[in-house]
């Protein structure tokens, strides 16, 4: 993976997460209903999670645009994707098929299922590979004074 591929992938994840966060920030009530329909979170955690998630997505997406904060931003995205994959697996297992709510427009109106699960797993694997590539330079040339 050369530096241009890494750059393109960084911007890809950044744009995907920024675009995904905006409609959820604009209309949090709608997002609350979407998250509720997953039937995973308790009524106590539901509002706080709904309020926080889009902003975490937005900040992580913006961090990916900067060289200095790309790898921690990507770590957050890996964590989010892991949560999404877990939520989809639980709902498929329980036989619940709520609207994905991942994006706005027609993509947001797709119900979760194997297709959405496969897409998120691919994104998760891609994000993990990208993280390794982003940090490989540090691994190869360790600076003893850094990251202690």
């Amino acid at each position: 993976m050369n530096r241009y591929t890494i750059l393109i992938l960084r911007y890809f994840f950044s744009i995907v997460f920024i675009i995904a966060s905006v409609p959820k920030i604009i209309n949090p009530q709608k997002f609350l209903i979407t998250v509720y329909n997953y039937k995973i979170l308790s009524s106590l955690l539901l509002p706080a999670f709904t309020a926080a998630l889009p902003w975490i997505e937005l900040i992580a997406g913006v961090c990916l645009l900067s060289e200095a904060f790309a790898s921690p931003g990507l770590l957050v995205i890996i964590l989010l994707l892991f949560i999404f994959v877990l939520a989809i697996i639980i709902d498929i297992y329980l036989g619940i098929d709520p609207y994905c709510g991942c994006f706005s427009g027609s993509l947001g109106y797709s119900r979760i299922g194997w297709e959405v699960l496969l897409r998120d797993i691919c994104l998760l694997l891609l994000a993990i590979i990208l993280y390794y590539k982003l940090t490989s330079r540090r691994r190869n040339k360790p600076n003893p004074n850094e990251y202690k």
Partner: protein
Amino acid sequence: MFFLKVCYKRDIIVAFIIILVGSLLGIGYNLIYSGGVKVFARYSHKEEILKKNEIDFINIHEIRIFFEESLAQFIDSRDEEEFKKGHLPGAINLPLHKFDEYFSRFAGKIEQDRFLIIYCDKGCDSKIFVADKLLTKGIRNKIFLMEDGWEELQPIESIFFSNE
């Protein structure tokens, strides 16, 4: 665990800060924004709403008589976009996430002697919350919730306009 071992300490700390800042911003924004979620409220679950209110369920076979005799006002609690794609004839759109905005338009049109039948998608719960909000707003009409979702009502013609 293996993945965490290869992550840099600095990345984990900054990632934690991103989550913290994002959470605080999100909570702050929703506390200020009038259309935000009530962050510290405990949202009722459908079982609690159904227990405290006298709301009954109705199925696809039972609604036909209500429709033919114009005994009921159908309420569609799905999004505006989904409503535009298709809805029951004469149904009023009352999406949960824009309840107050839509209710103000709709309130004067409710005839007191008509039943209210609320439906949404297959497996969705927005109809229960819309029913709860209607009762909170002082609506005294008898409310029924459709057991079946919009998907099961397809094609509409076979349910409402067949000669059987």
